[in-house]
C-alpha cells in the first residue's frame, strides 16, 4: 500500500475543505471506571474542537476480523483530548479495552448530524441510563461552558455510580440511583415533587439517552407533562456517516438513519408517549 495512516490526513482534509477520514489517534488515558466500564481518552484536536453533545465517534479495532466500526458517544473534551466511556460487551470492545496509553487507535468523527439542541436557555434535565451517560456528560459540559442554563443530571446505574463524579463539575444538581433502589423515573418524580419543573423561571427540557425501555418510559413521563424531550438513539451501524442506510429506526416520518438523521430525535418524531 502506498498510503500510511497518519494524523496528517486530518490536516490535509481540512486544508482542502473536507471532513477528516478515518485516522489514527494516540491514547492518552485508559482506565476502568467500574467492572467492565472503560474510559478512554485520546488526543484529537479536530474532534475536540467540533464535537457536539450526542455526537459520536467510530472506533476501529486493530483486528481485521472485526472491520465494522464501533460507535461511542463523545463524553468529555479537555483541550485536545477527547474522552469516551464504554462497556465491554463483546469482542470489539474487549479489543479496544486491551489498548494501553501510547497505543494508537483509528477513529472517524465526530459523527451524527443532529446532536442535542442546547442553544436555548432552559432547565436541562439530563436523563441517562447505564452507558447512556456519555452524550449527557458532553451536554453538561457544553451547557456549563455556555453558562446560561440550569443543569440537573438524573443518572440511573446498574450498580456502580461511575459517572456521578465526572458530570458533577458541570451540573447544578446530580441525582442518581442504582437498579436496586429504582430507576430514573423514580428520580424524575422526586425532582418534580421537590423542586417543581420550572427552575429559576426556566422551562424544563429533557435530554435522554439509555436503554430503549427506559427511554420510552421517560418519553411517556415527559409527554404527560408536555415537556420537550430529545432522545439520543442507538442502532447497529454500517458507515456512521450516512452512506449505507444500515442504521435505521422507525419514526413517524418513516425509517430514518440514526447516524445522519440523528442520533437525536424528538419524542414526537419517535411517536412515543402520545
Amino acid at each position, binding site marked *: *500500500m*502506498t*498510503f*500510511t495512516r*497518519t494524523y*496528517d*490526513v486530518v490536516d*490535509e*482534509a481540512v*486544508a*482542502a475543505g*473536507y*471532513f477528516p*477520514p*478515518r485516522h489514527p489517534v494516540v491514547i492518552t488515558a485508559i482506565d476502568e471506571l467500574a467492572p467492565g466500564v472503560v474510559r478512554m481518552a485520546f488526543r484529537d484536536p479536530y474532534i475536540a474542537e467540533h464535537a457536539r453533545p450526542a455526537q459520536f465517534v467510530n472506533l*476501529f479495532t486493530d483486528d*481485521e*476480523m*472485526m*472491520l*465494522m*466500526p464501533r460507535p461511542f458517544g463523545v463524553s468529555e473534551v479537555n483541550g485536545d483530548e477527547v474522552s469516551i466511556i464504554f462497556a465491554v460487551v463483546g469482542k470489539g470492545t474487549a479489543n479496544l479495552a486491551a489498548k494501553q496509553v501510547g497505543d494508537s487507535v483509528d477513529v*472517524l468523527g465526530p459523527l451524527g448530524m443532529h446532536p442535542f439542541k442546547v442553544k436555548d436557555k432552559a432547565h436541562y434535565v439530563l436523563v441517562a441510563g447505564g452507558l447512556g451517560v456519555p452524550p449527557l456528560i458532553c451536554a453538561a459540559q457544553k451547557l456549563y461552558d455556555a453558562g446560561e442554563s440550569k443543569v440537573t443530571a438524573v443518572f440511573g446505574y446498574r450498580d456502580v455510580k461511575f459517572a456521578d463524579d465526572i458530570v458533577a463539575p458541570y451540573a447544578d444538581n446530580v441525582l442518581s440511583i442504582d437498579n436496586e433502589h429504582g430507576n430514573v423515573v423514580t428520580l424524575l418524580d422526586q425532582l418534580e415533587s421537590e423542586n417543581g419543573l420550572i427552575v429559576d423561571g426556566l422551562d424544563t427540557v429533557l435530554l435522554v439517552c439509555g436503554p430503549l425501555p427506559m427511554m420510552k418510559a421517560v418519553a411517556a413521563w415527559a409527554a404527560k407533562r408536555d415537556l420537550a424531550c430529545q432522545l439520543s438513539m442507538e*442502532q*447497529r*451501524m*454500517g*458507515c456512521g*456517516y*450516512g*452512506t*449505507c*442506510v*444500515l*442504521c*435505521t*429506526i*422507525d419514526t413517524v416520518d*418513516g*425509517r430514518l438513519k440514526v447516524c*445522519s438523521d440523528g442520533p437525536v430525535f424528538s419524542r414526537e418524531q419517535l411517536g412515543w408517549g402520545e
Partner: protein
Amino acid sequence: MTANTNSNEHVNLYEPHEWKHSTKVAGVTWKNPVGTASGTFQYAAVRWFYDVSQLGAVCTKGVSPVPWEGNPSPRTTEGPASNLNAVGLQNPGVDHYLVDDLPKLKKIGATVIANVAGHCDEDYCEVVAKLADCDADMLEINVSCPNVTHGGMSVGTDPVALSKLMDKLRPMTDKPMIVKLTPNVTDITAPARSAVEHGADALSMINTLLGMRLNIKTGEPIIANRTGGVSGPAVLPVGIAAVYRVRTVLPEVPIIGIGGIDTGEKALEYLYAGANAVEVGAAALFDPVAPLRVARELDDLLDDRPELAAKLAAGQTWR
C-alpha cells in the same frame, strides 16, 4: 526490525491529481478504473469527505419506481473480515433521484452509473423508462440483491427470467446497460451469457453472498431479516473467480469486478482476472475515502504495467 520493502510514503489524497490510467466500459471512458459500488455511496454523505467526481465512476444506490422503506432493523452485523447487510433496498424512489442525486452528481462532473432495483419486471421497466433519457452515463440493473424477494429468489439466478427482463428493458434506452450478477448461483456464466445475448452492454459482479450470524447469548439471528448479504474482504476470492470464469466464456463483454476490494493491489488482481474496471463497496464503510485511495494506489501500480494500462485505456482487457 522493519524491512523497508514496502514504500510507506504518505500520499496526500486531497491534492489535485492527474489520472494517468483511464479505462473504457461499454464505450464510456472512466478517468480511472475505480468506481463506487451501489448501496455504499450516497452523494449527500460522501461529498463531505472528498471530491467524488475524481472517481472513475460513481454507482448510486438502487432506485425503485416508488420510495421503498426496506427491511426492519437491525440491518447489519459482521463476519470474519466481512459485513452482513439486509437493507432491502430502502430508497426514496426514481423521481427523487432524478431531481436530487443525479443532477448534483452531473453538475460536479461525475461519471454516473444509475443502479436500478425492482421486485418484478414492471418495477425495472418503470425505472428504466424514467432513466432512459436522463443524464446518467450508464445504467446498472441490479438483478442480484439477496435481501428482496422476487418470486422466491432474485431474477438474476434464473437465466430465462433474466432474458425476458432484458428483452423488455433493452429497447427502452440507448444507454449502456450493465447487468449486475449474483454469486449465489450454481454457474454464474449462465446468467452472464443470457444477459449479454439479450442486450447487456456490460456485466458487473459480484453482489453479496447470502450469509447469516446468530447471537450466542440469545440463540437468535442478529439481523431482523435473519439472512443478509456478505461483502468486504472475505468475499474477494469469490468475486475474482466469478470475473475470471465469465471472462473465459465471454471474451468481449466489458466486466466490472466487485467484491472485497480495499486496496489498489486487490483492484489490480481483478483487472488481471479480466475486469475492465472495479467498484469498491464495503471498504467505504470502514473508511469514507477508501474508493479514492484505491483509485490512487491503482493509478501508481499501473505505471509499472504499461501493457495492461494500454489495454484498459483502449477498452480491452488482460484476458
